[in-house]
């Protein structure tokens, strides 16, 4: 068929196709080199990059923000937004703690909390899909409502806003003798004496699973199409509404995971848990190449974005000669710079 004179080649155009995470790969290299240089100058290179406690500091933060960023990036690719993620961490933590304090077995309390948060995601999704309100607005409402409801419940039942479940967890956090099955699942650090908090391992596993789903399954295709051009997607039979609802459920479930992990490892649920984390997760997704307009981005990029965020965020503590407040300035510039770079890369793909 190649002999047909009417066959034309479209392969020559834009061989140099860019992946969405290209920008964040550069970003990560730059941020690592920057902080390696800065810590060398201040003589803290070893403390940040070689010392287990130093490494823990930024790896655990990257995992925490990264887990949320997985949800944030999936939603952004589908053209949606979840501002309530951080608040839902507190809601999950409090719900779990309240169940436990009411004497519900821990296994059951975990299941109930996941059901509750998944249901919340379902409600958010249905509101967004049915009303056509921007998810920014809908989840802004839940940004207030989730944390407010959590604290209201704990005030009502226990007359305090911070709930300790130390006495109910067996063995207590930090105890270490005879870990239960639940410890094995939700607090490996206790169970196996491994150096990192459990979220680090969840993070690694989730990244692989979600990256695979987004790139290699029909569902992944539909996520991109739902954000790219929802009308067109529907016209070819993509269940756009269901895809979006499911993503809100994933987002609230990830917040739930973090909420429960935090309580399991610290022994208490704090009403301020997860405060502002939704913005950090969205920052990570933006740095990682997700377009706010939907249809473009990658989970791997968001994960690299979380790593960039965490290294910059924790690294600044190892560089005493730079004011801590300057960190926010730097982070702001970093987000702006990444967004510009990503937009440039994206335009190259379409305009050819």
């Amino acid at each position, binding site marked *: 068929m190649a002999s047909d004179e009417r066959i034309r080649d479209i*392969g020559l155009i834009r061989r140099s196709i860019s992946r969405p995470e290209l920008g964040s790969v550069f970003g990560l290299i730059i941020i690592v080199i920057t902080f390696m240089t800065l810590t060398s100058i201040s003589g803290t290179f070893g403390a940040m990059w070689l010392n287990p406690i130093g490494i823990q500091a930024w790896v655990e933060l990257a995992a925490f923000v990264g887990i949320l960023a997985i949800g944030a990036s999936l939603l952004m690719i589908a053209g949606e937004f979840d501002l309530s993620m951080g608040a839902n961490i507190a809601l999950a933590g409090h719900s779990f703690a309240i169940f436990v304090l009411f004497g519900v077995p821990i296994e059951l309390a975990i299941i109930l909390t996941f059901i509750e948060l998944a249901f919340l995601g379902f409600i958010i999704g249905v509101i967004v899909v049915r009303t056509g309100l921007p998810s920014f607005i809908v989840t802004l409402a839940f940004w207030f409502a989730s944390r407010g409801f959590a604290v209201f419940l704990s005030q009502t039942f226990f007359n305090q806003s911070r709930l300790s479940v130390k006495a109910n967890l067996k063995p207590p956090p930090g105890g270490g003798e005879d870990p239960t099955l639940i410890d094995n699942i939700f607090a490996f650090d206790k169970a196996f004496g491994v150096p990192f908090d459990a979220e680090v391992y969840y993070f690694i596993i989730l990244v692989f699973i979600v990256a695979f789903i987004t790139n290699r399954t029909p569902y992944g295709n539909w996520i991109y*199409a739902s954000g790219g051009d929802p009308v067109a997607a529907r016209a070819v039979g993509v269940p756009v509404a269901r895809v979006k609802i499911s993503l809100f459920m994933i987002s609230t479930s990830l917040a739930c995971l973090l909420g429960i992990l935090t309580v399991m490892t610290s022994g208490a649920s704090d009403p301020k848990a997860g405060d502002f984390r939704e913005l950090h997760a969205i920052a990570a997704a933006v740095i990682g190449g997700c377009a706010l307009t939907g249809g473009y981005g990658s989970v791997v990029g968001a994960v690299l974005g979380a790593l960039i965020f965490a290294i910059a965020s924790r690294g600044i503590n190892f560089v005493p000669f730079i004011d801590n407040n300057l960190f926010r300035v730097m982070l702001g510039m970093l987000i702006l710079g990444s967004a510009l770079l990503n937009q440039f890369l994206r335009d190259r793909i379409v305009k050819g």
Partner: protein
Amino acid sequence: MIPSIEFRGVSKFFGNIIALKDISFKVFKGEITALLGDNGAGKSTLIKLLSGVHIPSEGEILLSGEPVNFKSPRQAVSAGIGTVYQDLALQPLMSVTRNFFLGREITKGLFLNMPLMNTITKKEMAKLGIDVADPTQPIGTMSGGQRQTLAIARAIYFGANVLILDEPTSALGQKQQLEVLRTIKKVKELGDIAIIFITHNDMHAKLLGDRFAFLNRGKVLAEGSRDEIDMNNLRPLMAGGAELEKLETEFSGR
């Protein structure tokens, strides 16, 4: 021969607006039916009835002689009606293959069978005269004409035996218009597909049309095969026949 599609006295009302009134016409397989008419004549409404977006207010639509009653675009698609909308319903940032199979992906277990889908995409595009060297390229890199071809190839591959093209050349430059006309001719040569070709361009209609239907203000002004229609009279018919004559007398009376 039984027509692939037959409209019998079909009307469509939107509230008090009469978009289509008592429409009757036939479409045959292996033929290109050019559907012509001025802006607002009801062309898009007519194909929306056919593709399941709207439901007729009166009359019936017959598919190979059988009355059909589509309640959703999905039903129309599974009955073999492929519509290529003016905006094509493509995802510019997704790859050629992913666009081709969007919503109807081939899987191997849980996962996408990318090699197979890439091969099929290349093959189906080649049938219509476009060699896609790299089907993993985002579709945003293709020309308008090539995208149009992709949308057509996709409709055919997924079993369309009636292919509706809503102004496929209107948004394109001269060269790409010709490319699309060539593609449409190739589809016709496949032999078993009925093509409804909506256009404002009488040249294009003349080049490709086997049958013609002229819509004006919601009614069929004229309908027939190449032999039955005065080919030199396309332009006035498209603009609404009698009205144009009236205008001519008005102008000449100056």
